[in-house]
Every structure is written in C-alpha cells, then in structure tokens.
C-alpha cells in the first residue's frame, strides 16, 4: 500500500494516542512490581525487589528447599 501523504501524518499521531492505554498498562505493571507504592503512573514508594521474591520462594510463600537450612546441614 502506498505511503500516506505528509498531511495524513497526523493520523499516525492518532494511532500513537490510541496505543497509549496499552503502553500505560504495561508501564503500570512494571512500576507496580518494582516500587512500594504507585499512584497513577507515578511511583511514590521506594524502589524495592520485594515483589520479585517469588523467584526464590515456593508457591506457598515459603522459601524454596534449596535455601532452607535442614537440621543436619545446620549442625
């Protein structure tokens, strides 16, 4: 399809504007995961990795076995 003539470029801005909700959602997801508190899209809490603790915890919230100190190991 031929490229849009220059005066139609405003339409591209319109599409970019339509894409904003999608981008805002992803930005919100990343911010909420990385900061203590987020208002709108503005982080107000401290930067934290607390929400990423699932990386070394089991689904029940306990630390995974690889990090547990078993009795015979702790002795």
């Amino acid at each position, binding site marked *: *399809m031929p490229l849009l003539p220059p005066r*139609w470029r405003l339409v591209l801005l319109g*599409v970019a504007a*339509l*894409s904003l909700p*999608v981008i805002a*959602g992803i930005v*919100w*997801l990343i911010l909420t995961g990385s900061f203590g508190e987020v*208002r709108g899209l503005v982080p107000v809490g401290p930067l934290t990795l607390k929400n990423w603790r699932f990386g070394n915890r089991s689904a029940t919230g306990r630390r995974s076995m690889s990090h547990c100190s078993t009795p015979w190991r702790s002795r």
Partner: protein
Amino acid sequence: MRRYWAPLAFVLPATVLIMLFFVAPVVTTLYLSLTDLSTITFQHPRWIGLGNYASLLRDPFIGKILFNTAHYLGFTLLFNIGMGLLLALLSSSVRERYGAQIRAVWLLPRILPPVVYVVIWQGLSREAPYGLISDLLGKSRNWITAQPWNVIILANGLVGASFGMLLFTSAIRAIPPDLFYASAVDGATTGQTVRRVVLPLLRWPILFVTAYQTLSLLTSFEYILLLTNGGPGFYTTTVWSLHAYQLALSNYFGNVQFGLGAAMAAVLVVIGIVVTLLYLRIFNFRALVGEPKVEVN
C-alpha cells in the same frame, strides 16, 4: 469402489479427530441437556426431555442475560473489527519501521496471560490517587464498578483488535501493487483508494474475522469473569456463556447443575450456527469462493 480408498484414507484422520473433539462433545452436551444431571442427582440422573429448556424460558433473568450477550457481542465486535482495520490500514501506510512498532505494541495485550491483563485493568481503574483513569478524568471512583461494560468492552477490544490487525495487514500486503499504481494514475485520493480498492479486496478477511470473533466472543467469558464476575449487582454483566459456566461448574450453593448448563451451551451452539449462516449470507459467501470472472494465465 477401490478408486475411493486413497481419498478416504486421506480424509479419515481428520474425520476421526473432528468426530472425537467436535461432534462428540456437541452430542454429549445435547444429551446432558435432556437430563437433570447435577451434583445431587449425579448417581442417578433422570431423563427430563425439554425440562431444562423450559426452566430457561421461565428464568426471570434470561432476557437480561440475552440482552447483555448481544450488547457485549455487538460493541466488542465493532471495536475489534473497526480498530483492527484502522490499525492495519494505518500501520501499512507508514514506513515499515513505524508500522512494525505499532503492531508490536498492540500485540502486547494478546501475549499477556488474562489474569495479568485483568490485574492491570484493576490497577488502572482504582480510585484516586492510585488509579490512572481516575487521575486522568479527575473523578475518583472504581471504574470497573462504575462503568463495568465500558471497561469490559475496552479490555476485550484491546486484545481482540490485534487479531484483525494481523489478518488485515497480511491481506493488504497481498494486494497487487498494480492496483495502487492504476488508482494513482486515475487520480484517486488516499481515501478513495482505501474505499474503492482496499476495502472491496478485504471482504473475505473481514468475513473471516467477523465470524471467528463472533463465535469466540459468544463462548469466551474469562475477562468478564475476572473483571466483574457478572456483577456488580444482579446479572449486570453476566453473558450467556458465563451463566452457563456458573450453572454447570461454579455455583455458590455447591449444587452445580450440569444438565441446565448443558442446555444453555446447546442454545449457544444454535445461536453460533445461525449467526454464522447469517454472515455467509450477508457477505455473499458463494460469490467469494466462486470461480473468478476473469481468469489470467
């Protein structure tokens, strides 16, 4: 007879799969819909004929649920097809670098798991000062509760638009450039080229996307379930498939009514078939798949 063996052998695997995974579930659903199968009668279900269908007709909320389904289907479909077409047209009419970026952004909601996607919507729709929508509109309210249909349609639409966008983009790319050159030589404007050249050639993909999305929207309810669970209040956003699910598999009182849920599912199958036949008629399917009037060798 022997000359039919080879084609029959080729058709057999697909036929077996279709019978097993498409026809058998429909027949089972129809059979279940004629029984009173529930958790109470699980051991000894009784044949009750059209009793479940009569119960559906007597349900005072069934009209509302039907209206909700039509409302959800109509507006979401309009958003999906319209936005998909707009995105495909615009992303195909700019430099490929920008077009690819726009398409990539619009694919993000589709690749997100529904639960994560709904968490995003719940976060954005919260009251001020936490919710972005409340912030932007200057009104503090939970938008999922205040405007449940708008949120559901927008959330579904943003996911669904990417499907149409991809298919329409590939269809636009398949249009022979000669047609665009010819329209330029004839002095057609961009709008005229879209209206007279592109859109008529997109009839087949538009039919496919419309039919596919209709059937998909009729049966899918996961975003509604996660966003509002049919509320707020009584059946405000309950659609047919969600109600069937709640009756057949998830009931507050623990007595799930498989038979009644199956009757609702059977009605949905009939609605799907009727709507598809209607689309084939509207888009003149026979002409679309017919022999081309001009054959070029």
